[in-house]
C-alpha cells in the first residue's frame, strides 16, 4: 500500500485484531461447550493412561516419573490438536460453507491480514488449551511451579506452527472429507511418535530421524525444558525450528489461499 494514501483506513494492528476479535467472540459465545472439553480431555487422559496404565510403568522416562513425562507432553499436543482442527475443518467451513470470509474480505482487510489473523487466533487457542492442561497438571501436582506457568507461551507458538501447516493443507482440499488423511495420517501419528508417550530415543535408530523432522517433537522439547527450567544450547535448534517452520509454511499457506480467495 502507498503511504501517501490519504484514506485513514485502520492500521495493520487493528486489522489483525479485528480478525482475531471476530473469532474470539464466536468461540466464546458457547463458553460452556467450547471451554469445558479442554479441561476434561487431559483430565481423562491422565486418569486413564497416566495413573491407570502408568502404575505398571515403573521406569522413569527422561528422568521423569511416567505421569509427569506424559503430562508435560500433553501440554503441547493439546495446542497441536486444537490448531489443527481450527485451521482445517474450521477454516474450510468458514471458507466454503458459511462464506464468512466473503463478508470479512468486503471489510477493509487484505487476504494476508485475514490469514495472519487466523494463525494468531489458532495460537491463542493453543495458549488456552495448554493453559487448561496446565491447570489439570497443577491439580495433580505434577508440574513445577512457577516454571510451568510459562508453558502457555509454548502452546501459543505450537498453535501458530500447526496453524500454518494446517492452512497450507487446507489450501489443497476440495471436499471436507479429505482432512481425514491429514488428521489421521499425519497429526495423530505425530502424537505417538514425537516423544509424548515415550521418549524419541527409544525409537529404532532407522526411523528416529523422522521424529527429528516433524514439528511436534520440537514443541515437546520446548515444553519439557520450560517445565523443568532445564535449558540447554541444543534447545536453540528447536526454537529455530519452530520459527523457521512457522514462517515458511505461513508464507506458503498465504500464497496458496490467496489464489483461492482472490479469483
Amino acid at each position: 500500500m502507498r503511504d501517501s494514501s490519504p484514506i485513514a483506513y485502520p492500521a495493520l494492528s487493528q486489522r489483525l485484531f479485528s480478525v482475531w476479535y471476530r473469532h474470539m467472540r464466536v468461540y466464546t459465545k458457547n463458553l460452556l461447550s467450547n471451554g469445558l472439553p479442554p479441561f476434561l480431555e487431559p483430565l481423562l487422559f491422565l486418569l486413564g493412561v497416566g495413573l491407570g496404565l502408568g502404575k505398571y510403568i515403573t521406569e522413569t522416562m527422561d528422568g521423569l516419573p511416567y505421569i509427569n513425562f506424559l503430562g508435560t507432553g500433553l501440554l503441547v499436543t493439546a495446542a497441536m490438536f486444537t490448531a489443527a482442527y481450527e485451521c482445517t475443518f474450521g477454516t474450510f467451513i468458514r471458507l466454503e460453507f458459511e462464506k464468512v470470509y466473503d463478508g470479512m474480505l468486503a471489510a477493509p482487510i487484505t487476504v494476508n491480514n485475514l490469514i495472519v489473523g487466523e494463525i494468531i487466533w489458532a495460537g491463542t487457542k493453543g495458549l488456552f488449551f495448554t493453559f487448561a492442561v496446565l491447570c489439570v497438571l497443577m491439580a495433580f501436582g505434577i508440574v513445577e511451579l512457577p516454571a510451568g506457568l510459562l508453558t502457555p507461551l509454548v502452546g501459543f507458538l505450537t498453535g501458530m506452527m500447526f496453524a500454518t501447516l494446517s492452512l497450507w493443507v487446507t489450501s489443497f482440499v476440495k471436499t471436507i472429507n479429505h482432512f481425514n488423511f491429514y488428521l489421521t495420517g499425519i497429526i495423530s501419528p505425530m502424537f505417538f511418535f514425537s516423544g509424548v508417550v515415550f521418549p524419541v530415543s527409544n525409537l529404532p535408530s532407522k526411523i528416529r530421524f523422522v521424529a527429528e523432522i516433524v514439528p511436534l517433537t520440537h514443541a515437546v522439547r520446548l515444553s519439557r525444558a520450560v517445565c523443568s527450567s532445564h535449558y540447554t544450547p541444543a534447545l536453540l535448534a528447536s526454537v529455530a525450528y519452530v520459527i523457521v517452520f512457522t514462517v515458511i509454511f505461513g508464507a506458503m499457506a498465504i500464497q496458496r489461499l490467496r489464489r483461492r480467495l482472490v479469483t
Partner: protein
Amino acid sequence: MKIISVQNVNKRFGKVHAVCGLSFEVEEGTCFGLLGPNGAGKTTMMKMIYGRSSRTAGDDGAIRAFGYDPARDELAIKYLSGVVSQENNLDDELNVIQNLMIYSKFYGLPASVARERIGVLLEFLELSEKAQARTRELSGGMQRRLVIARALLNNPKLLILDEPTTGLDPQVRHLIWDRLRQLRSQGTTILLTTHYMEEAFQICDTVLIMDKGRRVLEDNPRRLLRENIEAYVLEVPTANGMPAIDETRLPTGVRLDRTDGTLRFYAEQIERLKDVVERLSGEQYYIRQSTLEDVFLKATGRALNERQ
C-alpha cells in the same frame, strides 16, 4: 464526479471469458445497475471493483474507484465502500447487535460510536425489535436487511450490492428498494447487480444490460424501454401446438419474436395486437406493456429466465 470508472476490462477463468472488454462509469450519487442472466459476468465485474477478483492483465484495461486502483489500494476502496455479497454470511451463533459490533472493529469504530451507529441502522432497516435475536432465528428478509445494515456501518460513500433482493417476498423487496432510494438521495452512490428487470426499473438511474460478459445496452431504464422496444406485447403460449397464424402476413407495425414455448408479438399501438388476436383460433393470450425483459430478449435474441 465519477466514483467508479471501468475501462476495457477483461476477465478470463481459464478458457472462459467472463468479462469481455467492459467499460462504464458511475456518477456520484446515482444508482447503477448491472443487469443480466446468471453467468453474464455481473458478480465477477463487481468483485473486481473491490479487489476480490483480479482483472486479467491487458493492454489498456483499467479500474478506478474513488480514483484508486483496486489492485494496489483495495483497503482505501473497501474503507469507503459497503459490500452486500450474494449470500448472507452472517455469524449464526451471535445476535443481531453482536454481528454488527464484530464488523465495527474492521472499520476501527470506537465501541460507543459503533453502538450509536448500530441503533440508527437497525431503526433505518426496521430491525430494532430484533436487536437481541440470534441471526439464525431471523427470516430471510431480516437476514438480508441485517447484511445491508452491516455494509452501512462505516457510512459508505459507495454501496455495492450483489442481487440484493433475490428470493425475498414483495414487501421486503419494496422496503429494500425504498431504503436504497433514500440512501441515494442522501448522496450515496449505489452499484448493484440484479436479474430482476423490475428492480433495475425501480431504483436504477442507469442500467447496463450484460450478456456473456459483454455490454448489450446501457442507458436510463425508461429511455431504454422507450427507444429500444415497442410499447405493447402480445404473448401466445405454444405449448398446446402452434397457432395457425400466417407469419408472413402480419399486420404492419407488428414484429414477431419466437422463443421456446411462446410467440411474442410487439407493436407500438395496442390495436394492431388486437388485430392479431382476432386471427387466433381460441388460443390463450396475454397483452401487456413491454418491460426491460423484452428489451433484453430483443437485444440478445434469447429469453432471460429460461435455461439459465
